[in-house]
């Protein structure tokens, strides 16, 4: 049986582990030079920090995932540095690119573990050198041992905001402030659901307490106004309004920003998996059952790419998707393991819903985004240009949904294909049209999911 697994983060590792136990040798690829995903990303050779320094309280889990990853590599057709750029469900074909060579792999079943990236709400100045996602700030430290600046502000909401700031402080970086757009009261209300996972809650409180104890400015319920600076010299300040309505300026030379994460679901989309809006997550998520089965035979999903759940959930959904695949193929399954994981996943889902309520995407900021703000950083399309596409007086009439607005303005048409701006663009359009963001739709996926060199050679031919 030909099985393909895309991604070698926690979900991919646990999926391949189950497949190999059942005697399947899958094609297993990851775009990165090594597995671990983003959460358990390993630095290149020559870096010496141990797991405790790299992954903190998650060191034990990271070590376990890495050990399994390394043990599995010889038992699979392991292909690192390999981009999966298109997939078809009928016929079942996975298109990849490795070291400049394009290949097409037929498969009987595939598990897509494509992960997530930061959820962004643009603000004036966010394209300046010195501004990164929270995930990017964390990767700079984890994988390169660097801080994104001398004096770093952290802005956004969600567990990663606090974790990234804490990791910077611990590594000796200067943290200018942690500015959380969620008011304390909103988080407190959502706390009612959090005790389903007391360990995670305790970790979060620990990070916040340590940052406060270090005397770092921590503010909640803030409104970000602009990142100031100039292109040549980079960031000089963050302009914001505190919860009492007072305007403030914070000196800093870098800003890490983000509001949770959203699934990287382009491959699922291209395969034809239906995508629906999940109002609790405030994300577009691919349709799949609790085991990771999609409505398409042979296509399974796991990890954050299947809906945001975090690293622990990714490990569990990876194993479950593999078990579902094995069951559907009539191969040996482990029913007890599946029952145990499904029970844990149900408890985790309640915790995740509470987290989503505690750290909401700041959709309200879209309506107030100044017209001159660059919304699509690839194509430099401003919020004002997008709003103009929503007016009936325009040359084409009003764009009723986001793909039409893309045709009018080029928003989301650049190299990132709307990964970064797509959600915020939909919010800006929804606010202007006075409609719900789910009605505004999402930018449809297009192959290739990431840019390919135009000279990519088909397998068996030499590059021209």
């Amino acid at each position: 049986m030909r099985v393909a697994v895309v991604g070698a983060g926690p979900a991919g590792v646990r999926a391949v582990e189950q497949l190999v136990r059942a005697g399947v040798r899958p094609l297993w690829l990851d775009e990165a030079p090594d597995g671990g995903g983003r959460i358990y990303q390993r630095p290149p050779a020559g870096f010496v920090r141990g797991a405790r320094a790299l992954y903190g309280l998650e060191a034990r889990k990271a070590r376990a995932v890495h050990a399994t990853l390394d043990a599995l590599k010889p038992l699979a057709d392991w292909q690192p540095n390999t981009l999966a750029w298109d997939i078809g469900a009928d016929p079942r074909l996975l298109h990849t690119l490795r070291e400049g060579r394009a290949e097409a792999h037929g498969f009987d079943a595939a598990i897509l573990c494509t992960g997530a990236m930061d959820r962004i709400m643009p603000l004036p100045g966010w394209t300046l050198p010195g501004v990164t996602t929270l995930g990017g700030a964390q990767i700079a430290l984890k994988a390169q041992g660097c801080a994104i600046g001398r004096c770093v502000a952290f802005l956004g909401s969600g567990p990663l905001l606090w974790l990234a700031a804490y990791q910077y402080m611990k590594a000796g970086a200067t943290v200018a402030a942690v500015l959380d757009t969620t008011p304390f009261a909103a988080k407190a209300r959502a706390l009612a659901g959090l005790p389903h996972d007391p360990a995670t809650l305790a970790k979060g409180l620990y990070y916040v307490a340590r940052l406060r104890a270090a005397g770092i400015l921590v503010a909640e319920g803030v409104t970000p106004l602009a990142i100031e600076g100039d292109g040549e010299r980079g960031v000089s300040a963050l302009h914001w309004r505190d919860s009492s309505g007072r305007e403030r300026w914070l000196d800093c030379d870098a800003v890490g920003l983000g509001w949770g994460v959203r699934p990287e679901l382009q491959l699922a989309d291209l395969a034809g998996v239906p995508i629906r809006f999940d109002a609790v997550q405030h994300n577009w998520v691919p349709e799949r059952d609790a085991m990771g089965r999609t409505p398409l035979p042979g296509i399974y999903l796991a990890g954050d790419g299947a809906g945001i759940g975090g690293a622990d959930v990714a490990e569990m959904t990876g194993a479950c998707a593999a078990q579902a695949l094995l069951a559907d193929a009539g191969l040996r399954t482990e029913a007890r393991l599946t029952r145990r994981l499904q029970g844990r996943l149900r408890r985790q889902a309640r915790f995740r819903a509470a987290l989503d309520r505690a750290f909401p995407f700041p959709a309200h900021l879209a309506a107030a985004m100044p017209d001159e703000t660059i919304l699509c950083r690839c194509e430099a399309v401003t919020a004002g240009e997008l709003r103009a596409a929503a007016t009936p007086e325009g040359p084409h009439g009003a764009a009723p949904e986001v793909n039409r607005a893309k045709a009018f303005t080029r928003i989301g048409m650049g190299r990132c294909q709307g990964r970064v701006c797509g959600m915020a663009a939909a919010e800006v359009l929804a606010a202007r049209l006075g409609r719900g963001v789910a009605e505004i739709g999402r930018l449809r996926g297009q192959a290739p999911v990431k840019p390919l060199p135009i000279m990519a050679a088909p397998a068996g031919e030499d590059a021209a």
Partner: protein
Amino acid sequence: MQLVRLVDQDRPGIRFVFEGRRCDARAGDTLLTAILAGEGGFLRRSEFGDGPRAGFCLMGACQDCRVVVEGRGPVRACVTECTPGMVVRRA
């Protein structure tokens, strides 16, 4: 943008060329790190005239950190290893 080397920096020095100038980096640096921890400041200029850019996601997704490597063409600086003698310019 000035990346600050904080930890895990005891790695062999390497040299590469950025915008015609010889620069120092360390084995294991990505191009993004090598350029921005040095004096590169930024990676490219937006083709729409809105100024310099220096990447954003650092995980190979946003495509905002493109630079051109001689002999290879455009690459994402955040996921491309800096190797000795590499000749790099802004995209």
